[in-house]
């Protein structure tokens, strides 16, 4: 069973089918795309029962020669680090596709690019060959560029180009770093599993240089301070479903790369960078929350809150402990789900009011109770309320970082307070207080919107009460990974 390839390439095949369909057949295009998303998601669920939770080794490995003369291979495989992200990707893409049914123009191209994007994202999490990894990494870039640039808001071209150039400049350094690894391994190889065992041969100096190359690419994707400024702009301009994917999956590629490559292959470089990383993590947390507090645009606020939440992930990573790692991975999953639903919900109100200005609303809770309830729930989840998904992961991140970085963690805890402050302010301004008479005609959420948001809400609550569903799959891998550093 080539399950991973099936998961990854089902969307691509569907994209090709969409390409062949005439563009007037919008219904067919939508059905094909949704079906592809659903099939891919179903396949990824098949991974769960077959996955061996007790081993940190790569599973479902597929290996074919690709360019034998350079020893480039098509290697796919997952472990407890990538499995949650793969499922997150297929799940979020399916919901984003449902959320995209409201797109009215150039439907064919839109779904084509969206499906190509899904293939790219899945490939990044599954590839175990650096060339393949790089290929998929770049593959996500082009669809994103078009999705923002064509279907975006007023400043879409600028946002798209900024996003594209920024991430591309990061990838260039990554390419250099990949080549450096290739030429310094004996025998020359791009095989990630082989490279993970090769680091003892490399001098710390070399590792630091290569680490920086990778770090630039990953930090831009995360986005880590100070490379985060493309994110708010891209989010504000991107259409709703694209924002969802951007926040829920694309940002995770950065932390994933940090854990898989920077940490797994270059421990000496990682160790050297650790004091900087913790500072960056704390800055991300506190500074991101403060910036979010200054926003009046709901989407921008959620975008900055992403900066804050990815800061928790970085904090967990910087803790270099099994607890921190599992916190970071869980936080990635939870942030994907929670921020995904936040973006979808902001999109819902934007579709009705055509504004996202917080102060333009007021008292909506009386008018649209279901929407208000779901939005408040998502906000509370995002600010880390226990019983909802964000709490455990945030806590594990802090717990993982605390033994090593007590003072930094203590500063980071202030971020939680700030997060609460700005989310509450948004709830207050939008839903509470006297009713703003401008919106008395606003309708509550329709079936399509509920279909895309409610699954996320359910998962948010479920993972909040029963984090075991996610944690059990990664425990073995995280324990193994933490062991690498202590050796």
């Amino acid at each position: 069973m080539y399950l991973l390839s099936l998961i990854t390439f089902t969307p691509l095949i569907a994209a090709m089918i969409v390409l062949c369909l005439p563009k007037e057949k919008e219904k067919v295009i939508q059905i094909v795309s949704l079906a592809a998303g659903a099939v891919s998601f179903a396949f990824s669920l098949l991974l769960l029962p077959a996955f061996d939770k007790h081993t940190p080794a790569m599973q479902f490995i597929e290996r074919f020669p690709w360019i034998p003369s350079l020893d480039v291979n098509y290697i796919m495989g997952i472990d407890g680090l990538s499995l949650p992200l793969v499922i997150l990707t297929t799940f979020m893409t399916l919901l984003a596709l449902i959320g995209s049914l409201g797109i009215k123009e150039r439907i064919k191209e839109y779904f084509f690019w969206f499906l190509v994007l899904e293939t790219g994202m899945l490939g990044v999490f599954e590839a175990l060959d650096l060339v393949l990894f790089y290929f998929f990494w770049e593959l996500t870039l082009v669809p994103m560029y078009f999705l923002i640039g064509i279907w975006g808001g007023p400043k879409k071209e600028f946002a798209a180009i900024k996003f594209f150039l920024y991430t591309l400049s990061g990838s260039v350094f990554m390419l250099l770093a990949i080549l450096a690894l290739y030429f310094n391994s004996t025998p020359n190889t791009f095989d990630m599993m082989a490279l993970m065992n090769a680091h003892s041969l490399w001098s710390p100096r070399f590792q630091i240089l290569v680490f920086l190359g990778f770090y630039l690419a990953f930090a831009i994707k995360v986005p880590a301070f100070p490379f985060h400024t493309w994110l708010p702009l891209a989010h504000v301009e991107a259409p709703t479903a694209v924002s969802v994917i951007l926040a829920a999956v694309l940002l995770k590629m950065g932390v994933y790369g940090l854990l898989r490559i920077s940490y797994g292959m270059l421990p000496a470089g990682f160790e050297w960078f650790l004091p900087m990383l913790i500072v960056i993590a704390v800055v991300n947390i506190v500074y991101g929350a403060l910036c979010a507090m200054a926003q009046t645009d709901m989407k921008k606020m959620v975008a900055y809150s992403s900066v804050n939440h990815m800061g928790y992930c970085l904090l967990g990573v910087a803790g270099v402990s099994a607890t921190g790692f599992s916190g970071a991975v869980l936080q990635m999953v939870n942030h994907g789900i929670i921020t995904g639903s936040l973006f979808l919900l902001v999109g819902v109100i934007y579709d009705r009011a055509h504004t996202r200005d917080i102060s333009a609303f007021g008292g909506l809770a009386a008018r649209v109770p279901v929407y208000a309830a779901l939005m408040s729930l998502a906000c509370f989840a995002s600010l880390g309320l226990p019983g909802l998904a964000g709490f455990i992961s945030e806590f594990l991140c802090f717990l993982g970082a605390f033994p090593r970085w007590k003072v930094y963690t203590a500063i980071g805890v202030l971020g939680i307070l700030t997060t609460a402050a700005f989310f509450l302010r948004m709830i207050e301004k939008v839903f509470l207080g006297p009713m703003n008479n401008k919106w008395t005609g606003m309708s509550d959420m329709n079936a399509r919107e509920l279909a895309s948001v409610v699954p996320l809400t359910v998962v948010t609550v479920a993972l909040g009460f029963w984090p075991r569903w996610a944690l059990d799959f990664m425990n073995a891998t995280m324990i193994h990974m933490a062991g690498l550093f202590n050796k």
Partner: protein
Amino acid sequence: MLEHVYLIPLIPLAASLLIIFLGSEGGHSRMPLLSILAMAWCLAQALGIFWQAACGHVHLPYQASWDWFSFPVDAGGKAFSYSMPIGVLIDGAAAVMLVVVTLVSSLVQIYSLSYMHGDPRFKRYYAFLSFFTASMLGLVVSNNLLVTFACWELVGVSSYLLIGFWFEKPGPVYASKKAFITTKLGDCGLYLALLFIFTKVGSFQITQIQDFVSRGYLAPMAATLIALGLLAGAVGKSAQWPLFIWLPDAMEGPTPVSALIHAATMVAAGIYLVAKCYFIYVASPLAMETVAWVGLITALLAATMAMVAYDIKRVLAFSTVSQLGFMMCALGVGGYTAGLFHLTTHAFFKALLFLGAGSVIHAVHSNDMRHMGGLSKKMPITFVTMFIGTYAIAGLWPSAGFYSKELILEKVYGHSPLMFAILLFAALLTAFYMFRLIFLTFLGSPRDTVKHHHADESPAVMTGPLLLLAFLSIVSGYLLERNHLFAHLVDYTFPEGMKPEGAHVNALFLNYGVSALVLGSIGLSWKLYGGQDFKLAESLKQKLSWLFNALEDRYGFDEIFLGLVSFSDKSARLAFWFDTAVVDQIFVDGWGLLTKIIAEISNLFDAMFIDRTVDGFGDLSVDVGSGLRSLISRGQVQEYLMYIAIAVSLFATLILSR
């Protein structure tokens, strides 16, 4: 019964979910009955457990655990999978708290049937109430500090929902946000304490932590830090100085909610947490002393502020803060039993007072005591019950307050006479302002005749709970004190050598002395506010206007809070400005600028050092650049082909000629 104690928090939770998802919204919804039924079940079970424990049929503490989830932890350079338990731990304090919480919530829910009837969000109100209670009960029974913290936060969020229940009005919205943020500020300390505990102990299970601490593995420094962190959380939740500012505002919510918050479900949590983690405080004398002083300062400040308030609920709110200070102080001086005893008795009479105040407000439609007066004839039951509550809070024999307050004062006297003096003063103030409330509200002549005319006694659904609570306010102290029942149930055995030193006190003498002083204080209150006019009070107010102003401004603590808010707003704006003006410019646009500068430099380099051919190349590229559009976009296939051919031949030649 005890083995199914986990049902106690789960049943209200289930009830709350059912209420949310079933039935239709409306002022006459029948769903509240479900909530009350759930609460009644819990009350019955809690009473059963209490009875069994009191009779010695079961052995406490009782503990049961289930696996919740597991996550990897690192210890000693090795990582392994740690299984986080979720479970119940019932000791004497928990058994008592269960009764208090379920009892007060049941009564509040019954009371609300009438008070909130007709509200368009009647059903939702009960869902929130149930959820609030469920969270608090979870906090009480949990055997795991992480779960305790989770419930703690849920208590916070449900109080947010309930205080801001009438969200169309700006007041409740502001108050709810203030409550949430202020308590969250304290929670940051608690959060850190939890991180610290797990790092040191490697477990969140209370019994294991206790074991670890009692073996002396926890360094005093670490114990102090942890204890202070826990205290920060408790200070936020239990409205202690300096985070008490949220509680007086929190009365913006519906009055029964205030009763619940003040008596059983919210502010009690902080005291209960300190009691639950008492072993950590015992390990750190410094933390103990801090607890005592925080409680002492709170008790005094809040009592003084209550002296000048005219809003009936605000007086009660300040009195809660002050009484919580008493409990905190008791815990700080080693009076574990005394603190919890007062928590229990206070729950009864404070719930009574709030529900009574709600009854008054329901009748008069005003919170302001200056619009009341002479209501005793109009609403006799409310008057009598509230008088009993006031009598109890003043601590006069034979009310419940007498037993608990005397116990606290005894403990504090044994610890430090200075603290005793301050606390005694606070107790006298309590009697003063509480009776002032009674005098202003019920006695004298009606000051607002219109309101007075329309006022009427509340229905039986509301007065019933009042009567029951009044009964409990009188007898609970005696019943619990009899045969040292409470002390047997709720006791903390100090480890050897850690028992706080206390001077021997002549309890009888203390009782008489304090009672006499309290009576004097009540007399003073009567002198000032008991008559038809308040000449004396007015003239005093003129003479001491600076003091009155300071008290009405709540010593400026609100300003500090507002200053903090505006500071964080300002720093947020600063951060965002920095982000757009500096970071974005430097790291994005600057990136482009850098490339351009490098290009310029290399161009200069070309012009100066490389020979003319390359110079010509540069010119060529400039020409190509400027003429690109006119040249290339002519649409001639063969020209494109020519470019390709030229490029390929050039590259081929260049590469091959190496």
